[in-house]
């Protein structure tokens, strides 16, 4: 089962990497977000967003293969929903994207880079990051915010 899903995800990741997909997908996700009630959206907006986006990616993949069924949408943790998402940053393939992210990260000051890597690569809490970097937890969050914003802008070439 897990193996099956892994194979599917690999397939989707390959499948969805076409130029036009990302903004279209965002647009469709947006429209679906508008349809849901405020109450539902407010309970956990991020989880909802990821689920909607993920389902859409899966639907597209199914349509492309002209298969009408066979996809189970289970209750995976929020970050697993992310695995099928395209990168929203143009036409880079996975290897190019990893290389570019490496370059973009190097443009950050070391503490800022450390904070974002400790948070997402190593899953340290903001408190732990603060201890390791000798700053306050608020500062640790600020570093992570700056780093994410910088990476996103540079990855999407927004100057």
């Amino acid at each position, binding site marked *: 089962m897990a193996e099956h899903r892994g194979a599917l995800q690999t397939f989707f990741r390959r499948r969805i990497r076409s130029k036009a997909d990302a903004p279209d997908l965002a647009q469709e*996700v947006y429209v679906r977000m508008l349809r849901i009630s405020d109450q539902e959206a407010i309970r956990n907006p991020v989880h909802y967003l*990821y689920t909607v986006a993920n389902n859409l990616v899966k639907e597209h993949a199914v349509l492309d293969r002209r298969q009408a069924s066979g996809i189970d949408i289970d209750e995976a943790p929020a970050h697993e929903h992310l695995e099928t998402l395209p990168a929203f940053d143009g036409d880079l393939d996975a290897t190019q994207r990893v290389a570019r*992210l490496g370059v973009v990260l190097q443009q950050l000051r*070391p503490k800022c880079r450390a904070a974002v890597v400790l948070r997402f690569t190593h899953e340290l809490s903001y408190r732990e990051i603060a201890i390791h970097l000798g700053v306050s937890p608020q500062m640790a969050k600020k570093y992570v915010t700056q780093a994410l914003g910088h990476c996103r802008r540079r990855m999407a070439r927004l100057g």
Partner: protein
Amino acid sequence: MISKDEQVRAAIAEQASEWLVANDDGPLEARDSAALAAWLKASPVHVEEFLGVSVIARDLREARSDPEYSLETVLARARAEDDTPIQPFWRRVIGPVRGISSRRWLTAAATMAAVVVLSLGLFSLWNVRPIAQVSAPGATTALHFETRHGEQLSRRLPDNSVLHLNTDSAVTIRFGKTERLVTLTSGQADFEVAHDPEHAFRVFAGSAEVVAIGTKFDVRLEGDSTVVTVVEGRVAVGPSPLLKKLGPQSSQNHPPRFVQLGADQQIRVAADEWPATPAAVDAQRTTAWLHRQIVFDQEPLERVAAEFNRYAPKPIEIATPALRNLQISGVFATDDPEAFIAFLRSLTGVRVEVTATRIRVSQDQA
């Protein structure tokens, strides 16, 4: 030049990052949750940027096996940033123009290089590879342990080391490719380190850093200082590079980065004082808590009470100031405050009242 559209989008990317981090730090409060939902519903560009930022976080998560992203590498570089004196802005822009200032700058740079060599030398003495030379992928496993008030815990770790955690303590341990990295965030811990020269055992605790290979030692956070006691073997203790800027202040008498400690030696590292001098102690006393005991040899009641209060459900309060210096000797059980109360009651001139919330010790007037 970037267009107006791109500037707007960059600003939205910024907002998306702020929302992601806010949401990442535990569940949002209802009001913030509603604000985020409203922000997402405001524009498809908001949705796209939020998803874009999320994907960056995902890509970072998947970069786990890349040595460039290893815990040791990013931390070493972040620490190097701390140790680098900040260059004045004008110097960065126009460079060293006048001879005098550039020579002074060169001297400073040379001193700094000497300090780096010194610390690398110490590391090789300890048969530990310097942390910056990490080449293997850093698949890191982390373990976190916490104890509540009055609680203790002992665990054998995956590397066969044994961790004992005292009351009100928290520790995180990460096993990296080249290091065993421990952070003591509160309380007291005792480490029986399994011998492994390939993976230095580094403890970051408040103001101090302890480096060991295979030994048994105790680390306690006490206010602003950190107290390290060695039971067996040897460890190196230095000021924590995480909290202190270790820049070269005086080139001639630069204090050593680490002081070596042997069995039955103890060192107290205060936040802003280095070097510190080790003192001889009976390490068995420091680690008596492992057997749920506290040992006192002619110590003032004030200190004894503070020690008891680390474990006791009801705090001991000294109501008569004169009693604070009353000398106490004895061996007591941390989990049996009754025995200690009985002992206090046996002292002449001491009165003990046990109320619902505290144990009040005062001078007996009679």
